[in-house]
C-alpha cells in the first residue's frame, strides 16, 4: 500500500477470544469486510480450548469504535465470544524494524512457578525485545513439564553467546534447559 495513504488511515486494535469452533475467523472477517476495513496485521491461535485473535485493522472511511463494537455484538450475539477494541494513534502503528540479531530461546523443564517471569526479566533488564512468545504446559499431571519458546531481537552489538551466558546461572537455579540459537533471517 502507498505509504502516504497508509499514514492517513485510522487504526483499531481488536482482540477476540472465545470457545473454539469453526467459523470464528470467518465471522470476524465478514464484519470487517462489510465495514470496509483492512486487516493489516494479525495473529491468532488456539490456546487451551479457546481461540484467540489479535488484529490491527485500518479503515479509510473513519467510523467510531462504537460502530465496530455494535457490529461485533450483533454478529457474536450467540455468545461465547468476547471482544475488545482500542483506537490506535498514528505513532502506535509505526513499526520499528529491529536492528540487532534475532534469536530463539527454548526453555523447558519440570513445571515450577516463575519460569516465564525469571527468563523474561533477564531479557528485559538488558533491553532484549521479545517479538514472539509461546508457552505450553505438557507432560502428565504427575510430572508436568513447562515449555517456553520465544523470539527476541537483541540490542545492536549483543551476541547469541552473551545471551547464552546470561542464562547459565538461571539454568542451574531453576533446573531447566535453556538454549539460544540465532535465527536472523537470511537475505537471498
Amino acid at each position, binding site marked *: 500500500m502507498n505509504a502516504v495513504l497508509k499514514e492517513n488511515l485510522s487504526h483499531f486494535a481488536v482482540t477476540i477470544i472465545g470457545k473454539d469452533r469453526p467459523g470464528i475467523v470467518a465471522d470476524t472477517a465478514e464484519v470487517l469486510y462489510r465495514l470496509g476495513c483492512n486487516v493489516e496485521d494479525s495473529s491468532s491461535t*488456539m490456546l487451551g*480450548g479457546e481461540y484467540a485473535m489479535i488484529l490491527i485493522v485500518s479503515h479509510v472511511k473513519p467510523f467510531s469504535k462504537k460502530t465496530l463494537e455494535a457490529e461485533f455484538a450483533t454478529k457474536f450475539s450467540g455468545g461465547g465470544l468476547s471482544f475488545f477494541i482500542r483506537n490506535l494513534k498514528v505513532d502506535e502503528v509505526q513499526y520499528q524494524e529491529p536492528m540487532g540479531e*534475532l534469536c530463539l530461546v527454548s526453555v523447558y523443564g519440570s513445571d515450577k512457578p516463575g519460569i516465564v517471569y525469571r527468563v523474561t526479566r533477564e531479557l528485559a533488564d538488558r533491553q532484549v525485545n521479545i517479538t514472539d512468545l509461546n508457552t505450553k504446559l505438557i507432560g502428565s499431571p504427575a510430572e508436568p513439564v513447562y515449555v517456553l519458546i520465544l523470539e527476541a531481537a537483541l540490542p545492536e552489538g549483543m551476541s547469541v553467546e552473551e545471551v547464552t551466558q546470561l542464562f547459565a546461572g538461571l539454568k542451574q537455579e531453576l533446573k531447566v534447559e535453556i538454549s539460544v540459537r540465532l535465527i*536472523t533471517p*537470511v*537475505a*537471498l
Partner: protein
Amino acid sequence: MSVRPIVLYPDPILKTPAAAVERIDAAVTELLTDLVDTMLAGPGSVGVAAPQIGVGLKVCVVDVSKSRNGKDNNHGRLLMVNPEIVARSGAATMREGCMSVPDYTGDVERATDITVRFESPEGRQEISASGFEAVAIQHEIDHLDGYLFLDRISSLKTGLFRRKNYK
C-alpha cells in the same frame, strides 16, 4: 554492466517458469554481469535470478563466500545457466527473506546437500553444495521455476504447538 532494479511481487514474471538458454552468447554473458552487479549492490544479498531483474531466462548467480553463514563452505562465485538439481538429501529449516518480497520472512525447509549441474562461461559443471550455499542455490533455482519462498513456507513460527489434541 549495471545494477538493475529488482522486480517485486506481484510482477507476473516471478511466477512464470523461465526459458532455457540455448547458448551462452554475448547477451547471456552481459546478463550474468548484470546479475552479479545487482547481487553485490543488494545489502547482504547472496544471489539473484534473472526473473528478479525482469529477464525470463534460466540464469542465476550465487555467492555466499562473503556471508556469515556461508563463508567457510562455498564454491565462490557461481554463474549458473540452465541449472538443474540432480540429487538432494537431508533437510533443515532456515528463515528466508527475498529481495522480491520485501518486509516478510518465513521458515523454509530445504535439502542440506545437493548436486547441481549447470552451464557457465567456463563450460559444463557439476558441483556438490551443502549448508547455506545449498539453500541459496535452491532459492535461486526456485525463481527460475516460478516459485517464491512463500510457496515453500514449511510452518508457522508457532507450529510446534499446534498438534496437541485438546480434550
